[in-house]
């Protein structure tokens, strides 16, 4: 069945042949309905095993702290069956949407088959490996076959940028802040969409967590599998290199007004009301926990405060004795899943504050909560005072 699906998709996408892939990241183990469980169990019944190293994206349950997810019995059982089916096929139980921070880092130029939109964008744009946006089911079919259709972003000529985004009008101080990257991504995804852009003028030492936040936001607001950051994307040391030696077909000069409009789109309400905070989409890294812990002393968290992360990070926190103090400070650490894919937030909907462009995008439809976007420091300050606090000065 996997080979038939792969062959049919290859034909539909105009691929001339299949190519070997070095690894896969698989997004199909998150429960959205019984059909996906039946599909995975049919593969298992046929004896399917993955042929290449394959990590798993989030599931619909927190297997480390099951009480975090308030699923009814049917949903719980089906979500668990789905997760177990993918494990049975030989996928690694990483259960994270940040596989690149859980040891899965393909090399520059390597062909891979990844699902999960943020991971696809990060894989192409930050690691320089090559993957298309593989949807649920095709990712596991590629992993079983060890092959993917040769089309799209596997081909060097389809990876060239045609749009230059000139960020020279944005203050260097803003470009150093974490809060800038989801906003840039929200603007980029909506504006550039399916074209390939090269962003010029970002700090050469911007962090992987900043690029992770950018990847998640571009992919939530647009059909973006690859963006180039000049000086940072491995195949884009310069704008000219990103464009394959050509000049860009068009140039957009990014302005502070464009960014402020994108920032405003990330929130669905204004005002002071706040009922919960959620961080960690993509999953929080150890470095992000460092930043959170630095903000906590002297503050008392008054509202539900969720941080979603991978079990690899939970294990590190535990080993270093950091998990218990976080819990004492009022932080709920969620592993293996997250607040927009599983019933975790308190049932009575209200206003959720987040520093994640991806949470900001999906929260209203998936949880019923309204959403307010702010920096990490804004989120902590708001959780401590019980009303929305945002530092507006950085956007002036």
């Amino acid at each position, binding site marked *: 069945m996997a080979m038939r699906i792969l062959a049919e*998709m290859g034909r539909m996408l105009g691929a001339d042949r299949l190519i070997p892939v070095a690894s896969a990241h698989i997004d199909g183990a998150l429960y959205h309905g019984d*059909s996906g469980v039946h599909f995975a169990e049919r593969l298992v019944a046929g004896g399917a095993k993955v042929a290449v190293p394959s990590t798993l994206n989030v599931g619909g349950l927190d297997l480390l702290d099951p009480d975090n997810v308030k699923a009814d019995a049917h949903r719980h059982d089906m979500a668990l069956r789905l997760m177990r089916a993918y494990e049975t096929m030989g996928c690694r139980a990483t259960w994270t949407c940040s596989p690149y921070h859980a040891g899965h880092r393909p090399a520059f130029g390597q062909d891979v088959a990844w699902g999960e939109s943020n991971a696809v964008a990060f894989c192409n744009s930050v690691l320089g490996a090559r993957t298309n946006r593989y949807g649920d*089911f095709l990712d596991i079919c590629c992993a079983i076959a060890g092959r993917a259709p040769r089309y799209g972003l596997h081909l060097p000529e389809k990876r060239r940028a045609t749009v230059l985004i000139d960020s020279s009008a944005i203050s260097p101080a803003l470009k150093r802040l974490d809060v800038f990257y989801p906003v840039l991504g929200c603007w980029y995804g909506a504006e550039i969409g399916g074209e390939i852009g090269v962003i010029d003028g970002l700090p050469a030492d911007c962090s992987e967590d900043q690029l992770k936040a950018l990847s998640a936001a571009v992919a939530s607001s647009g*059909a973006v599998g690859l963006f180039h950051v000049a000086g940072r994307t491995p195949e884009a040391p310069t704008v000219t290199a990103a464009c394959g030696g050509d000049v860009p077909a068009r140039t957009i000069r990014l302005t502070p007004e464009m960014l402020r409009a994108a920032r405003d*789109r990330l929130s*669905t309400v204004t005002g002071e009301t706040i009922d919960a905070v959620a961080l960690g989409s993509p999953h929080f890294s150890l470095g992000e926990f460092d930043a959170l812990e630095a903000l906590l002393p002297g503050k008392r968290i008054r509202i539900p405060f969720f941080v979603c992360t991978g079990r690899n990070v939970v294990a590190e926190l535990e080993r270093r004795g950091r998990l218990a103090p976080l819990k004492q400070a009022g932080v709920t650490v969620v592993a293996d899943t997250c607040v927009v894919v599983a019933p975790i937030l308190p049932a009575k909907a209200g206003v959720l504050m987040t520093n994640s462009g991806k949470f900001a995008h999906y929260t209203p439809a998936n949880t019923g909560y309204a959403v307010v976007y702010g920096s990490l420091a804004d989120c902590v300050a708001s959780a401590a005072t019980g009303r929305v606090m945002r530092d507006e000065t950085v956007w002036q």
Partner: protein
Amino acid sequence: MKLAAVPQIAGRAEGEVLKLEQPISFWGGVDPKSGRISDPRHPDHDREIAGRILVLPGMIGSSSSSYIMLELMAIGRAPAALVLAEPDAILGLGVVVAREMDYGSIPVLILPREAQSALKTGARARIEQDGGIYAETSR
């Protein structure tokens, strides 16, 4: 009026046209239980896609949209047909897997954005095996 679309997945269908005003991610955009558009930021929020000839100006977002498509096929809440602006690896995949799982099939056609403007929400349309779309012109 006849429009010549290119079939990605051939088939016949008939129904009312729903042309979305903006691109959408099925995951986080369409409720897999009801087949309604669930994203409150989307201009077509709360409209039902089940049974419609769904015309999409573009796809964004999640790779889980193929799962949502499969689930809609499984529970009988899928659109009657998909008319996409460009070839897409995500929604068509949901239909390909649905055929493997015996959940049925629907036509998936490619019709560039400029040509899509001839299709209006609310009009009746019929899709033929060769990708031809026969649509009412005024309504």
